[in-house]
């Protein structure tokens, strides 16, 4: 993930000679000037409208504002946790159904996954928010957010887990069967634990995407970070500052999760390398390669 040792970059060019180094220095100066120019233009634009004035930013030194936004962040984390747990459970079931040998079950799950991946979450939220109450079905606010998100995220979790299951060398399941385990046991004791371990980075990446999705709580007026930010901004009239602060909080929380995913991807656990290195899979599964690049 880090810029300095992207796999490709290291062999795209050789160690530059004197002329190459000069060019790189010139390029660095030009791009530094360009980036500085863009940043300066932005700041100048903000400054000319008085958006950088100290009194526009000092309110954010007040602890009360951070407490207020903190409650929102807790709401975000709460919603994300609920959706993650329900979505992962439902998604795992879907993945199991998808890889099962029962034809109709596999097709049913595949159909659900395809549909859920191609319908906007917002449409489901609007259905929950405006549609179903017309029919007398009304959920608490949290679930108006959590149900659509779970339905949508379960499909993504299912695809990730399925990729993990398929990436596992077939020998694992065959060995388990030859030990006399039943197919349920094979899945539960041998295949799933390894599959989930193999796709942990993807699962964490999906967790980030899920955290971002909880910002849709803004629409159903669920107390989460973005909603709190909006209420705060209509109260203090500091739109730019408030939304920037909220954006930066999202960036910090999700960025640390992404960083974790990247670290896991770069340094796979010992057992994972043992598994993926020496056992060539017939036909070569692409998802396995993808998780190790």
């Amino acid at each position, binding site marked *: 993930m880090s810029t300095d040792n992207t796999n*490709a970059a290291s062999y795209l*060019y050789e160690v530059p000679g004197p002329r190459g180094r000069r060019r*790189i220095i010139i390029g660095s100066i030009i791009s530094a000037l360009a980036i500085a120019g863009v940043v300066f233009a932005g700041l100048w634009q903000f400054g000319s409208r008085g958006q950088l004035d100290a009194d526009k930013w000092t309110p954010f030194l007040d602890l009360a504002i951070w407490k207020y936004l903190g409650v929102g962040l807790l709401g975000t984390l709460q919603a994300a946790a609920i959706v993650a747990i329900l979505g992962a459970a439902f998604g795992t079931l879907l993945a199991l159904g998808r890889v099962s040998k029962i034809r109709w079950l596999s097709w049913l799950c595949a159909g659900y996954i395809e549909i859920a991946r191609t319908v906007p979450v917002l449409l489901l939220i609007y259905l929950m928010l405006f549609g179903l109450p*017309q029919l007398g079905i009304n959920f608490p606010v949290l679930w108006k957010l959590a149900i659509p998100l779970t339905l949508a995220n379960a499909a993504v979790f299912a695809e990730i887990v399925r990729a993990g299951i398929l990436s596992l060398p077939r020998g694992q399941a065959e060995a388990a069967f030859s030990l006399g385990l039943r197919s349920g046991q094979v899945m539960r004791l041998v295949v799933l634990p390894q599959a989930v371990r193999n796709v942990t980075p993807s699962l964490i990446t999906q967790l980030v995407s899920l955290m971002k999705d909880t910002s849709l709580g803004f629409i159903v007026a669920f107390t989460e970070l973005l909603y709190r930010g909006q209420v705060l901004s209509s109260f203090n009239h500091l*739109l730019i500052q408030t939304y920037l602060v909220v954006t930066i909080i*999202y960036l910090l929380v999700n960025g640390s999760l992404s960083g974790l995913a990247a670290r896991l991807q770069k340094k796979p656990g010992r057992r994972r390398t043992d598994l993926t290195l020496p056992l060539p899979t017939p036909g070569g599964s692409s998802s396995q390669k993808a998780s190790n690049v």
Partner: protein
Amino acid sequence: MDIFTENAGLLLDAIGTTLLMVVVAGVGSLILGVLVTVARVSPIPILRRAAFLYVQFFINVPLLALLLLAVFALPDAGLILPLLPTAIIVLTVYEAAYVAEAVRSGINTVSVGQIEASRALGLTLWQSLRLIVIPQSLRAVVQPLGNVMIALAMNTALAAVVGVVELTSRVNKINLVYAQPIEIFTGAGLVYMLIALAIGLTAGRIERKVAILR
């Protein structure tokens, strides 16, 4: 069914807006995403750093927060554009980060020998990127890019929240009048599924056409 025929004009208008957003933001994010990837593998450290930060920023920040920032907050700083272009620009820069990630994973699939051979032939860095690396890595990531484009199509719905009258917003308004949520929202869902299906099939066709058999 007559809900749909009575409102055919409005619905077609809304579908047109959605498609416009998908196409413009899609093409824009493909171009911008490839440029970001090029910056990310360039030998210029500051460009690589900037491209990395760009990708990290947009992958970790919710699209809705960016839309609200661009539509409601930035006018306070004198940065104001009509609603639809604003939404399209935000979608473009947001999805470009995902395109960049996909293309970068494609660059990792280009074998070292290809790049070494291009250097041995005396191609400059820019030539080997333009003629050898980027074409091959794009071919390797047609399917992932298709998925990014499908996600983009889904994300255009978020523009409804800031007031763009596209499909989601329109069907919601129609439903508030007719109060037949199941039919109306299912209809809209089908349209989105068709858009996603079209993108998926196109990606599949392109992939079959350009795939490199190794």
